[in-house]
């Protein structure tokens, strides 16, 4: 019997040891193939050398690419990027757990209020443009363009529209189904404000989804479907869905960047905790984001780069270390140089 017991115990130990050794045994191997990891392991500064970032799902690709490129040049710094959503990100930012909150909409008054109560100061930095794209099924041969008015008619709170001809009489009497993101998304908030005039108000018959890929799949599978998604989800899925022109303007890099794709082109932000900026690595990271690396990251994640004049204005804004938001009176479609250029 003791034989059996030995078996059991050795088995358990072996299992644990195997897994444990698998870790320790292979880490150096992995490290040797990626030299950065070795340096981190040895030269890790004291706690606090981790830059923690959380917030918008939309901004996540940009910031995680940035983090990855930054890590290559600054091996001693650890970065953690998450995507709990813009609102949840600000909540954690207020708890003091984040160095940087990412956002696909400007910060809200009540969020600023919480931050003020907690004595957390922040600097607002736009990092890219996104053009909320109105997408339909490729089998939709009738609709090529919609006006903002037509969109409003279809999406507003009291809308009773069920067929396409109710949006525009020249469209056929085809059933229309509405898809889009859930209300924790900055995209949802931005679209409802820009189209319906009021944040977070939307028609009753609406199928929200947490994940954009699911929205794209739904629209790709239903002839009468219409939805709004971030520009990158449209551009990466051009074979599955078509984008409508809004007021005659198609969402393209050019129209989003120069603001002619209005009112649906919008800036994306990072909000930096001013206290964290006292740590050199955080300051360095933000400067990194404001430089050419930021542009590369935006391009690599299929978003639209900010024009040079806007970037210069934002850089000056950051160097002036001005806290608070400048987006309070921002109107959808407004130029960012007007917002950040002013003293």
């Amino acid at each position, binding site marked *: *019997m*003791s*034989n*059996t*017991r030995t*078996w*059991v115990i050795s*088995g*358990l130990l072996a*299992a*644990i040891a195997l*897994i*444990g050794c*698998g*870790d320790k045994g*292979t*880490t150096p*191997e*992995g490290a040797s*193939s*990626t030299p*950065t*990891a070795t340096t*981190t*392991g040895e030269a*890790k500064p004291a706690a606090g050398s*981790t830059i*923690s970032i959380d917030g918008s799902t939309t901004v*996540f*690709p940009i910031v*995680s*690419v940035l*983090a*990855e490129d930054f*890590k290559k040049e600054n091996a001693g*710094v*650890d*970065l*953690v*990027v*998450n*995507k709990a959503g813009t609102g949840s990100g600000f909540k954690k930012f207020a708890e003091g*757990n984040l160095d940087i909150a990412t956002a696909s909409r400007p910060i809200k008054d009540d969020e600023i209020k919480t931050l003020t109560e907690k004595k957390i100061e922040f600097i607002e930095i736009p990092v890219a443009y996104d053009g909320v794209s109105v997408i339909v099924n490729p089998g939709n041969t009738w609709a090529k363009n919609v006006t903002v008015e037509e969109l409003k008619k279809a999406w507003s709170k009291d809308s009773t529209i069920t067929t396409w001809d109710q949006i525009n009489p020249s469209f056929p009497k085809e059933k229309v189904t509405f898809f889009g993101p859930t209300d924790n998304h900055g995209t949802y908030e931005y679209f409802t404000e820009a189209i319906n005039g009021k944040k977070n108000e939307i028609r009753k018959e609406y199928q929200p989804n947490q*994940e*954009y*890929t*699911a929205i794209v799949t739904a629209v790709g599978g239903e002839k009468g479907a219409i939805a709004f998604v*971030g520009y*990158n*989800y449209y*551009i*990466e*899925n051009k074979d599955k869905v078509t984008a409508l022109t809004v007021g005659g303007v198609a969402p393209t890099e050019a129209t989003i960047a120069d603001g002619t794709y209005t009112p649906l082109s919008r800036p994306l932000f990072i909000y930096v905790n001013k206290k964290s900026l006292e740590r050199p690595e955080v300051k360095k990271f933000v400067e990194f984001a404001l430089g050419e690396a930021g542009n590369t990251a935006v391009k*690599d*994640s*299929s978003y639209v780069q900010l024009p040079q004049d806007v970037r210069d204005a934002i850089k000056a804004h950051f160097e002036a270390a001005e806290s608070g938001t400048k987006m309070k009176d921002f109107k959808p479609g407004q130029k960012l140089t007007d917002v950040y250029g002013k003293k």
Partner: protein
Amino acid sequence: MTIDPALAKNLASRKRKDKIFQVVCQLAAIAGVILLVIFLSKIFVDGIGKLSWKFITDDLSNRAKRTGLWPAIVGSAYVMVLTTCISVPIGVGAAIYLEEFNKKKTGLTNLIQLNIANLSGVPSIVYGLLGRVLFIVVMGLGQSIIAGALTMTLLILPTVIIVTQEALRAVPKSYREGSLALGSSQWQAIRRQVLPNAAPGILTGIILSISRAIGETAPLIVVGAASYVSSLPKGLKDSYTVLPIKIFDWANESQEEFHKVAASAILVLMVCLLAMNSVAIVLRAKNQANAKR
């Protein structure tokens, strides 16, 4: 020999029904397998192209062509080892108490027993929320690897207790009585007779619970497993990511190429799971062979 025509008709009809029932059952059995084969082959076709040693050992990246999986694999391994180390002593200990020492079956222990049975059926997201409040907010552990492991412990603990109890129950009473009759203490009887005989069952149960935990995503999203970490976790309070989280993230990326990366990661996860399950099977077989001697 003549058969009553009515009876013959009845017999034929019953035989027909018998046949139909058999076919329906066969179809049901095949349907499951076919779905699994379709699913696996789709994943395999999508994922095999990206799969390479480099993919497994490289750092995470948000550029589909460049990304590796190593931090997620290491994160999963850490969470798994920690979860095992915490849940096995507690789970097996609880089961031994409930089965072996708890002779009186008081109201309290009955309540505990009932609770454990119910807890094993609670959806995993609920454990995630519980873990978030308990470990992150109350205990202040942050979105760390230890908070993740403790949450996973909560998740698998009821199952570990129940399988251990069942394994203990399967050991014949005569073993304990024989040992006690020879003058052993209860602990000696449990240690020398009961546990070794129950071990295959316990071990299998533990490994299957752990392999459930390794595939769990929902609770870890809630307790803050990260989507991107630039380096491997070095301590219990470090940030981490795990395989299922990365699979979930990549499957939701806008770029099509990431969906292939997700498929490759699924292959890696499945190989891990299959390996663990086969270890369970082998250990079980060996122990049974030993126990028979």
